[in-house]
């Protein structure tokens, strides 16, 4: 019981402190809009995969506060980004800059596309060549082909008949 009373007291004491932190510093809608747009493209390093704009972590709050101050001082977006990259590295950017070690990242899809296209062309060309090869038929082959063709004709005749039957049946 004593513990519970103590807990409630502690929470009561803490509540105003927490509330103070949540109060936004600037109500200037122009700066807020700019801040949101800019921080949408920045990574919150504590809650990774979340943007700085939507994060509720202390880290994100601090950075947003700092960005607000810089905007009020008239710093440009680029200056603010430089400030952050200088301290936290390129990782804070959702769009990694093109650098020697990010070249593979940027060019990778293009390379894969080229690789795929090359393979496709090679395969098609080889198939085309294979199709063009003509070998003369031997006498035995001719005979076999003839037998096959004749049987095919016979089948076709039968097929026609059945079809006729069907049509007649249909008519009656």
């Amino acid at each position, binding site marked *: 019981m004593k513990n519970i009373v103590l807990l409630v007291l502690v929470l009561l004491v803490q509540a105003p402190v927490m509330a103070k932190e949540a109060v936004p510093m600037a109500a200037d809608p122009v700066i807020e809009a700019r801040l949101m747009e800019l921080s949408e493209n920045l990574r919150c*390093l504590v809650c990774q995969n979340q943007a700085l704009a939507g994060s509720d972590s202390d880290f994100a709050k*601090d950075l947003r506060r700092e960005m607000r101050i810089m905007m009020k001082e008239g710093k440009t977006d680029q200056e603010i980004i430089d400030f952050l990259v*200088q*301290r936290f*590295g*390129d*990782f804070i950017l959702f769009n990694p800059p093109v650098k020697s070690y990010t070249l593979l990242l940027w060019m990778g899809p293009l390379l894969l596309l080229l690789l795929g296209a090359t393979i496709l062309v090679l395969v098609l060309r080889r198939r085309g060549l294979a199709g063009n090869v003509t070998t003369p038929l031997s006498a035995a082959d001719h005979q076999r082909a003839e037998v096959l063709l004749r049987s095919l004709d016979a089948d076709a005749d039968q097929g026609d008949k059945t079809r006729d039957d069907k049509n007649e049946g249909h008519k009656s």
Partner: protein
Amino acid sequence: MIKQRLRFLVPLALFIIMVAFLGRGLFLNPREVPSPLIDKPAPAFELGQLHNPQYNFASRDMLGQVWLLNVWASWCVSCRAEHPLLLQLARQNVVPLYGLNYKDRPSDAIAWLNDLGDPYSLSAVDMNGRVGMDYGVYGVPETYVIDKQGVIRYKQIGPVTPDALKNKILPLVRELQAS
């Protein structure tokens, strides 16, 4: 015939390579973001001391010696984990260890040190976290190795582990002290 059969191994080989890359990725720690401040001058600061607020501590006071700057706070859970190791390091007396008390209440911080022991030569009070921001602190604890010229040579993100201390931090400190 053999050539034909080998062709079927190509997708398998590609698959194994892919698995190797993805598997490696599983064991990387995404929280360890390499600091852009490595090999750059440590951001200068001058802050009040935790135990003697009337005195300041300035980073330039440390020029000429290798030192460790440990960012800590009484509210930080992992700081407790690394604390025994820092106490042990302080007893060894190999390198001066300074604390940056980050976004903390000085009374809480002093109580914490009284409770657990104080490994720091002194701690500087960074109550609003401005200095921490200059150092790119995004999680506490973090530990910086700073050389005689005031250049950051190493950053430990998260608690100092016995392994990191033995294999990275102390060898680097010795090397820097010798140079």
